[in-house]
């Protein structure tokens, strides 16, 4: 697989503040990288450096073989970039704006018409093409900005919070769009929404205070959660006490917690001792004692737990 984006030791200082500290990663064709972190962690600064908007203090980014430090224009030619907040020339119409970007991107002839028609269709901009951008809703504005980023069909896409401020339907559409483009491109998206990472990304990087604090597949990050492979049980209130007594001594079980109580049922969370799946053992132990269970489900772990644990550590 070809590495389309190679970020090498990017750092950026603002005075005494280190906004980004030695961030490195690479994305191959087909890769969708989720860039996670609390506000102010350095996500936007990193993306700005890759896009050639902000000069790195040290390190560089290579986009399709071009070095952003030595040949920024070549990088910008190959890159589609959605800046944070999706700024636009609001006194233009989407049509005028996209024509402007197409000209700058050097698109002409049938190719230009084909690309323009393609993004207008993909982003459903047909109805608003000739309205001033300042009169458009946030959803439409975001789509105009995205259309700008994908107009030249770039190999590498850097999208800074592409679904921020959109309603659930619009979020779904943008995710679908990213999904359809994913196989042929290298994509980096920053987001706060962890479900988005699970839905879209095949890799996630968590950044806090400018540093990469976790890097792996969403699956492997979830495995860090203490709920990973835990078992949730729902049973009648009368059985709960007995179940806890049966499960607690099992060697595979670390802890049994009472999670919730309503209408005569009780939820128990059984955490595994060594992170391995314990569904079979728990099931067997309960059956042996003839304890009836209304519901039994295995947890995959929660990305937001992991996120909180990792990013709030001192």
């Amino acid at each position, binding site marked *: 697989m070809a590495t389309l984006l190679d970020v090498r030791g990017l750092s950026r200082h603002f005075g005494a503040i280190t906004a980004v500290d030695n961030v490195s990663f690479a994305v191959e064709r087909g890769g969708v990288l989720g860039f996670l972190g609390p506000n102010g962690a350095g996500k936007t600064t990193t993306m700005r450096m890759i896009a*050639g*908007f902000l000069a790195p203090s040290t390190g560089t980014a290579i986009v399709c073989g071009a070095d952003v430090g030595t040949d920024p224009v070549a990088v*910008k030619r190959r890159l589609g970039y959605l800046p944070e907040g999706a*700024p*636009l*020339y609001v*006194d233009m119409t989407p049509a005028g704006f996209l024509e402007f970007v197409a000209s700058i991107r050097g698109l002409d002839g049938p190719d230009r018409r084909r690309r323009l028609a393609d993004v207008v269709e993909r982003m459903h901009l047909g109805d608003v093409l000739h309205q*001033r951008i300042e009169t458009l809703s946030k959803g439409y504005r975001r789509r105009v900005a995205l259309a700008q980023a994908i107009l030249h069909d770039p190999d590498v896409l850097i999208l800074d919070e592409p679904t921020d401020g959109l309603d659930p339907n619009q979020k779904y559409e943008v995710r679908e769009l990213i999904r359809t483009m994913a196989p042929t491109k290298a994509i980096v998206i920053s987001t706060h929404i962890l479900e988005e990472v699970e839905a879209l990304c095949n890799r996630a990087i968590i950044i806090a205070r400018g540093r990469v604090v976790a890097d792996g597949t969403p699956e492997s990050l979830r495995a860090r959660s203490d709920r990973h492979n835990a078992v949730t049980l729902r049973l009648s209130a009368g059985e709960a006490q007995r179940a806890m007594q049966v499960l607690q001594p099992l060697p595979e079980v670390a802890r049994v917690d009472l999670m919730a109580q309503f209408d005569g049922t009780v939820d128990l969370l059984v955490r595994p001792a060594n992170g391995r799946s314990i569904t079979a053992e728990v099931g067997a132990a309960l059956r042996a004692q003839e304890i009836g269970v209304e519901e039994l489900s295995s947890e995959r772990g929660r990305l937001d737990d992991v996120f909180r644990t990792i990013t709030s550590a001192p």
Partner: protein
Amino acid sequence: MRNTLIIAKRELVAYFSSPLAYVFIVIFLALAGALGFYLGAFFERGQADLGSFFLFHPWLFMILVPAIGMRLWAEERRSGTIELLMTLPITPVEAVLGKFLAAWAFTTIALALTFPMWLTVNYLGAPDNGIIVASYIGSWLMAGAFLALSSCLSALTKNQVIAFIVGAAVSFLFLMSGLDLVLDAFRGWAPAYVVDLVASLSFLTHFAAIAKGVISLPTVVFLVSLILLCLFINTQVIELKKAT
């Protein structure tokens, strides 16, 4: 060069998509006419020339040109569109030049719309049209110099009002630098050649010749190099401050 023209075209269209363009043109034409006719005593002089009309251009430009230049970069920085613009495959020089040329083209349009003055003076008498053409060229170059100054200052701030006020103040200093008002501030401590240098920066001194129809080489060199210097600084400022 291609990119410069694409940016210039977008920018010029943007001027006309807001009321600013029309307000500016109307006020410029009204003031240029009124100052020339009344303060300049166009009729009373009984001479078929446009000297009294051109005489007030430096003062008009001092106020009105920063009003065009103020938005060039301050608005891009405030609205964040500078991030969009500077991540397109263009160089900072192309962006600065494109925006400057659009603003200059706009002032050219405003200046060209004063043609009824020229028609009037030709109807009333037989002026030396060579002098008038030379004065127009000089006035146009001076507008360009004010504009480059304003563009450069506009890159320093996100606030258009600050850009305008500082632009007008710096333009005023350039206008007056040949007069004692400014020169006295230097005479006390600076060597004579510095005082002479400051005096030679005066737009009024240069323009006095232009209004008589004399475009001397030093004046052209002065105005063109001032434009280039300002645009160069403008580019550096954009590189430094675009992301802050």
